[in-house]
């Protein structure tokens, strides 16, 4: 069974614990600038949105890579970058429609979310449940449940 990162922006407070956890997990340094998950702050609307790779099944990045440096981790379904194969050509960053695979100047390679080998540090660090790691078939069910609850209320009111 594969799992997915599930993001609920309404719960995000913008504390950046996820960015710190991600960068520490992958680089050993607390450094949001190198995080593979990013919080975007739409300050004039009062909205904060965590954003990272959703691990597409037919991954554009994987298909675009000319040296086959992006592979599927069969244990988790994550698309992972093989650093010793990646040549830093950045074609994947052009191919990805979501911008969630990024070049890192210091390593000369691209980096993306790898689900931390089935234990995503961002989800563990999130204090509000805005980022959770759930059964891949269950993403969206919480929102379905919310709407279902409304439907139920409407019926009850009649």
């Amino acid at each position, binding site marked *: 069974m594969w799992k997915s990162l599930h993001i609920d922006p309404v719960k995000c407070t913008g*504390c950046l614990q996820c960015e710190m956890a991600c960068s520490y997990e992958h680089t050993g340094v607390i450094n949001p600038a190198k995080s593979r998950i990013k919080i975007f702050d739409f300050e004039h*609307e009062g909205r*904060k949105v965590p954003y990272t790779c959703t691990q597409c099944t037919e991954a554009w990045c994987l298909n675009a890579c000319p040296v086959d440096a992006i592979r599927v981790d069969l244990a988790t379904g994550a698309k992972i970058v093989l650093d010793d194969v990646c040549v830093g050509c950045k074609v994947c960053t052009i191919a990805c429609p979501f911008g969630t695979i990024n070049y890192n100047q210091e390593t000369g390679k691209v980096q993306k979310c790898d689900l931390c080998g089935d234990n995503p540090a961002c989800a563990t660090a999130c204090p509000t449940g805005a980022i959770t790691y759930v059964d891949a078939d269950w993403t969206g069910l919480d929102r379905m449940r919310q709407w279902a609850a409304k439907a139920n209320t409407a019926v009850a009111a009649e």
Partner: protein
Amino acid sequence: MGWNRKVLRVNLTAGTCKDEPLNMEWANDYLGSRGLATKYLVEEIDPKVDPLSPDNKMIMSTGPLTGTMASTGGRYTVVTKGPLTGAIACSNSGGFFGAEMKFAGWDMIIFEGRSPKPVYLFVENDKAELRDASHLWGKTCWETEETIKHDHHDPQIRISSIGRAGENQVLFACVVNDLHRAAGRSGVGAVMGSKNLKAVALRGTKGVSGINDFAEFMKVTTEKKKVLADNAVTGQGLPTYGTQVLMNVINEMGALPTRNHRDVAFEDASKISAEAMHEKRETDGKAQLITNAACFGCTIACGRISAIDKTHFTVVNSPKYWGASGGLEYEAAWALGAANGVGDIEALQYANLLCNEDGMDPISFGATVGAVMELYEMRVLTKEQIGVEAPFGSAAALARFTEMTARGEGFGKEIGLGSKRLCEKYGHPELSMSVKGQEFPAYDARGIQGMGLTYATSNRGACHLRSYTVASEVLGIPVKTDPLVTEGKPELVKAFQDATAVFDAAGICVFTSFAWTLADVQPQIDAACEGDWSMEKLNEVGERIWTMERQFNLAAGFTRKDDDLPARLKTEAAKVGPAKGLVSGIDKMIPEYYEVRGWTPEGVPTEETLARLGL
């Protein structure tokens, strides 16, 4: 480690930026941020210096936990000699600026001299340079942030700046970062303005690698975050209601200073409370509050993000104020509201927006307006002099005064001097509700006796954040004490003052202390920093910081008589509530406090005390 061990020294007169190693001996004695920056300041300036002269210095500093995964580890401090008080000024802010300084590889930035023309400092990791800010001068903090990000094509730059209040040297101007966080008190923004320094813009991509024991640090910070999450105040009250959770509580205690401290309860408190921010408005069906928000690394998230009522008279013709923005927090809601009897929550949010936009401390500003309104009701000030009719309760006057003060117009220039100077000028110094020239925050010293001692002895003038005994006297944290008595308060205040100095020096938020004691912070510091950071040592560091600040103030000319409260709080009893009939017992507490501190009856630390602290 914990520190980057690197200081940026900016000489504004010469236009130079140089790096130098952090004095690790001092770091070992003063930890960081408030403590370490103050040590640098007291070593480098004459305590009698004119705060707005080039000879004063201004230091922006992080602590060892700033920029780390310790909850709330995003704080930085601005330390200088304050123009409002003439005392040590030390203002602390959250947001994201402090962490960015750490990520760029620096522990602190020292500003010296005065630039011949407006400049801003731009730091990108190791590279630091002063840039022309003539196009930014005259702009608000919000416009300044937007312009710098646009000019550098980098939305991820973090900025601290002054608005027009700081440029005009409003004596309670703040330094604003990340749009609506501020190093708020004592006029640190006026010092920045006096130096022709408009902004500091940072971009750091190096991160924090120097944690002494990373494995232990991650383990202990995770445990301590759970303590915050499980606590009723930090886990539920603050995230849901923000600091405004206190408005109704303090009002019911008869400890909500109202109409320039003439009253101790406000009949409209519920209209300006946290609960009111959650209520849907009749005009647009929306609540003022949109969501809560966190500063860097904070797992509490007490911050408020709100939107003002577009139809309100203050903004109906100003769409630029219609979007989401910071506020209201308890102190601002009190100072702009109860302190001058205004119960219109939308007017408070408007005044709060302007305070953020142009960088003014809403506490000192609001409290000064309270004094102006009292002088107006006494007919000492007239409409002709001040430009508006200003009885207590006038939302229109509040709004107009805010505009005038932020922009340096008309009578706003006099409000910008603070209540002490203004009340003296008009012949009623007794009406300034201040200590050492700085206005009181939102707790009445008659109804919460420990706060009276807190205010009278605070090293930066009246302030609640130097020893928040409300925690004990109202909320029972860590132990419940009776707010109406003076017994035991000198010991309580000293303990809070010393512990708070350590929280500040570490680079974390004092709000964690609703759930954490120093014993919760100690293992986090110990894991982050090299060397031994025992409880015993931290207690000593806290007391050392406090005493160092005291020594600076004494050398600046303060004496025992400055550790006092206005006569109103000592002679006019509380009219209602549990404290009805009570005045502040400050005269009884001060001698006891000096004794507890190991100071002479004149409030001077004894040789023995200084020797014990290595001062």
